[in-house]
């Protein structure tokens, strides 16, 4: 009987944890959607920038995003170190940072365990590759997550139009 009770308590705890996380992420998702909509409607951004932001919204509202990024980060970092372009290192506009911040909050509140594991993997990758980049004199500024994600997403297939 105690086994069943233990199992029941654990199962209820898991389901309540899932439900609470999902519910908590809703307000961040709504804020992120507002920011992305405002960004897309703003005329001062290029079509490609808007595409990247919409792609980022779509990707970060899915569970698979962070594990994929954890796998792709070493490649993105190597690409950034090899080509050493100014664009990759220069600070991103405030709007980009705000959108990524809201989307990150959405993802982290929705899947806290996955984000902790993947962010740790991303951190370890950066910790290993940044000294190599500095030693080779290829890194111009400390890379940020926005920079790395921007590099990955800006290399995503560039379609001619935005896709709803």
């Amino acid at each position, binding site marked *: 009987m105690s*086994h*069943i009770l*233990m*199992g*029941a308590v*654990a*199962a*209820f705890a*898991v*389901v309540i944890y*899932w*439900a609470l996380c*999902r*519910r908590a992420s*809703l307000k961040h*998702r*709504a804020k*992120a*959607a*507002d920011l*992305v*909509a*405002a960004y*897309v*409607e703003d005329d001062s951004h290029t*079509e490609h920038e*808007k595409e990247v932001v*919409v792609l980022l*919204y779509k990707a970060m*509202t899915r569970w698979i995003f962070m594990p994929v990024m954890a796998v792709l980060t070493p490649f993105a970092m190597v690409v950034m170190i090899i080509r050493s372009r100014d664009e990759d290192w220069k600070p991103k506009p405030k709007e980009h940072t705000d959108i990524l911040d809201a989307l990150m909050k959405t993802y982290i509140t929705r899947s806290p365990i996955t984000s902790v594991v993947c962010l740790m993997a991303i951190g370890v990758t950066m910790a290993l590759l940044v000294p190599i980049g500095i030693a080779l004199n290829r890194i111009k500024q400390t890379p940020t997550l926005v920079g790395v994600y921007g590099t990955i997403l800006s290399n995503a297939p560039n379609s001619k*139009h*935005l*896709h*709803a």
Partner: protein
Amino acid sequence: MAEGITGQETTINVINVSTERLPELLDAAGRLFELLWSKSPPLAAFVIILLVLLPFYVAYIYFACRQSERESDKKVERAVRKELKRQGSRASGGKKA
């Protein structure tokens, strides 16, 4: 829709949906549960109760969260559609000029 020879097959639009293997699968699931119960009873109880709770969780997510998530996604889609329309009108305006 036609019944097969054994009475356990059903053909729906040429696709054969066989229910013959269902008892075997249930048997295998039962054996797996027995094995799990003999190794760790709390884990077996956890799995079974989680499977029972899962439909309630899915229903809760569908009715309480999906609507709000869809609303947010629609907001972005509306903005994208508006932008595409604007680009289209700008392009056609450019051609006229």
